[in-house]
């Protein structure tokens, strides 16, 4: 197993830490009344510690509202953290002013969740993709127009699309425009928030492949936010599973999918519908009941205890720390699964009895 962590990312020869989050926290204040006094806080992100290695793809997964987008916006410094630190390439960027941040914006870019909402409908494709050059006052060898047309070709669109408007494109093409825009300044890190979930299945694969090609060509590092666990397995080197603002488990892809340790991960994997009619009846699923609790008043102790089938009294009172249980595999649970040498049928999804 110890070799696995090395093959995942380090294969790319690029494996040193590029982006490091330590105890990262974002609490959104809730204000009420005339005086707008703070009456509470949404604990959207509550103490995340993880690293992203150069050249790898780290995915953040978890249910709606668990803080994935907030984490992405913190990493790209679109919002200010309320605690913790972020370093990029060894430099602390946690509280850089927007002026000091400007040159770094080139290095870390975000692709947004909604391919429709994030492109200004009144601007041409040329203006949209060219904007980063103008904002950053970047000089291009053959002019901005030429640079934009090169980018269009790079993402599989035609240079003739330069003067067209977003509404003239399909969802997949719009997502390509968004990707071309983020690539304009040759970033080191791209935080991609659900880059394919709004797309049709047949188009999803086109965009996934494009992102892989670009990663190889430019040694890009991706932080991928997604909820489709099949897509996540395909694209990721490592995966972090979040629940209510915290990381429950983080591991390289193979260990996470074959030997999930946190009960929440086990439940997530067992709930994925499998496109195979023959296993309809013999899959054993773990059904979680109830909704994700509110991040305003998260449960005491382990945040997952209200839905966990393994919960004991200890879980209600004491928060389990995120600790390394095997090489490169961390989980936050008092009673983790798969800690023995037991192996699971890799195709059986977790929790399968087959």
């Amino acid at each position: 197993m110890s070799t696995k962590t090395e093959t995942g990312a380090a294969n790319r020869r690029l494996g040193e830490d590029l982006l490091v989050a330590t105890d990262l926290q974002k609490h959104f204040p809730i204000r009420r009344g005339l005086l707008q006094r703070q009456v509470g806080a949404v604990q959207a992100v509550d103490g995340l510690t993880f690293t992203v290695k150069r050249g790898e793809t780290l995915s953040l997964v978890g249910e709606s509202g668990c803080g994935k987008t907030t984490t992405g916006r913190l990493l790209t410094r679109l919002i200010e953290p309320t605690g913790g630190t972020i370093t990029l390439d060894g430099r602390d960027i946690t509280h850089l002013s927007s002026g000091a941040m400007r040159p770094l914006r080139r290095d870390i870019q975000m692709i947004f969740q909604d391919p429709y909402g994030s492109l200004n409908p009144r601007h041409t494709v040329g203006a949209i993709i060219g904007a980063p050059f103008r904002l950053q006052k970047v000089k291009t060898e053959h002019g901005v127009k030429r640079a934009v047309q090169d980018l269009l070709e790079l993402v599989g669109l035609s240079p003739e699309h330069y003067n067209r408007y977003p509404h003239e494109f399909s969802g997949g093409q719009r997502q390509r425009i968004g990707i071309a825009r983020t690539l304009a300044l040759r970033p080191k890190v791209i935080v991609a928030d659900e880059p394919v979930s709004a797309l049709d299945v047949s188009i999803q694969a086109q965009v996934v492949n494009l992102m892989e090609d670009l990663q190889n060509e430019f040694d890009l590092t991706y932080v991928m936010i997604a909820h489709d666990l099949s897509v996540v397995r395909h694209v990721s080197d490592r995966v972090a599973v979040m629940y209510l603002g915290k990381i429950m488990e983080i591991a390289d892809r193979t260990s996470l999918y074959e030997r999930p340790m946190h009960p929440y991960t086990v439940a997530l994997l067992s709930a994925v519908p499998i496109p195979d009619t023959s296993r309809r009846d013999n899959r054993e699923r773990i059904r979680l009941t109830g909704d994700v609790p509110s991040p305003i008043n998260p449960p005491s102790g382990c945040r997952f205890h209200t839905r966990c089938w393994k919960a004991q009294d200890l879980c209600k009172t004491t928060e389990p720390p995120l600790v390394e249980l095997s090489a490169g595999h961390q989980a936050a649970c008092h009673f983790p699964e798969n800690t023995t040498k037991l192996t699971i049928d890799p195709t059986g999804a977790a929790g399968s009895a087959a």
Partner: protein
Amino acid sequence: MTQHEDSLGGATPPRPASSGAPFLQVRELRVHFPTDDGVVKSVDDLSFSVDRGKTLGIVGESGSGKSVTSLSIMGLHKAGTARISGEILLDGQNLVGMAPDRVRQLRGKRMAMIFQDPLSAMHPFYTVGSQIVEAYRIHNKVTKAVARKHAVDLLDRVGIPNPKSRVDDYPHQFSGGMRQRAMIAMALSCDPELLIADEPTTALDVTVQAQILDLIRDLQAEFNSAVIIITHDLGVVAELADDIMVMYAGRAVEYSSAPDIFNSPQHPYTWGLLGSMPRLDRERTERLQPIKGTPPSLINVPEGCPFNPRCAYAGTNGDLSFTLRPEFRDVGGGHHIACHLGAEDRLRIWETEIRPKL
């Protein structure tokens, strides 16, 4: 409802089928929308049927006409916007051309729909409970108090916590997943004989999705309803559907039993769908195989086979794919496809080119 109270997954005898004919039969359905740019042929010559107690899964490209088909069955296209022809027989009664009042009376009890967008189906100004009560009382002559108790029971069954107090909440006070479940409660309030679920779980997390799918399964077992489930997620149809219809550009391109569609699909578009999707139940592949190109315009549908601009096998049979629309036909054992490829070609391509890569 009360007599079924304790029978979730239990042994209530199924409702007897009224005759041998399928409960829902759609024949040569066409739904066209005249627009400034031309006529949008959203559904073009579509035929299928669903028996009581059975589930039909409809999958297909975004914009292929899945929602338009279900809205036609429910009689929910705005008057004057759609040109609808063909037949939609619900237990033998043709809904096409039926007076809107009469169709309205069928909604709720004989057929109900779970919509793609839960907000569009719930009224923001009324509490969740009052909307279920109203839906229930259209078909059941009961007092408000009885109907309210029914609403609480339903919310409980779809997994809303504290249903007694949440019944008085407004839709916006529910989370996305809870709204979806409340809408399902509303759709199920009169034990519909036909339930159409249009992307019932797309916006939901996998754990909630699993709860909803269980619920649909249980209710169907209990009431022997016919169910149509529309989704992009091939995993969802594999779990739920008896039969699967694959749509492309307003038409059916393949139809068969669910195991058949997954184990021996015969249409190039279906191959493409299966190949483009990463699968948790297989070894991880290095590369996904997308379907090239983009979905077709429904105003200028390509000549011949609508899939030809994106099909790798379009030239296999001379120029047939470009000139002649392939007929949707039975190629054996009820397996239908619309493709010019001959049986030998299909088998060879599937066995040698497609299956090894899935």
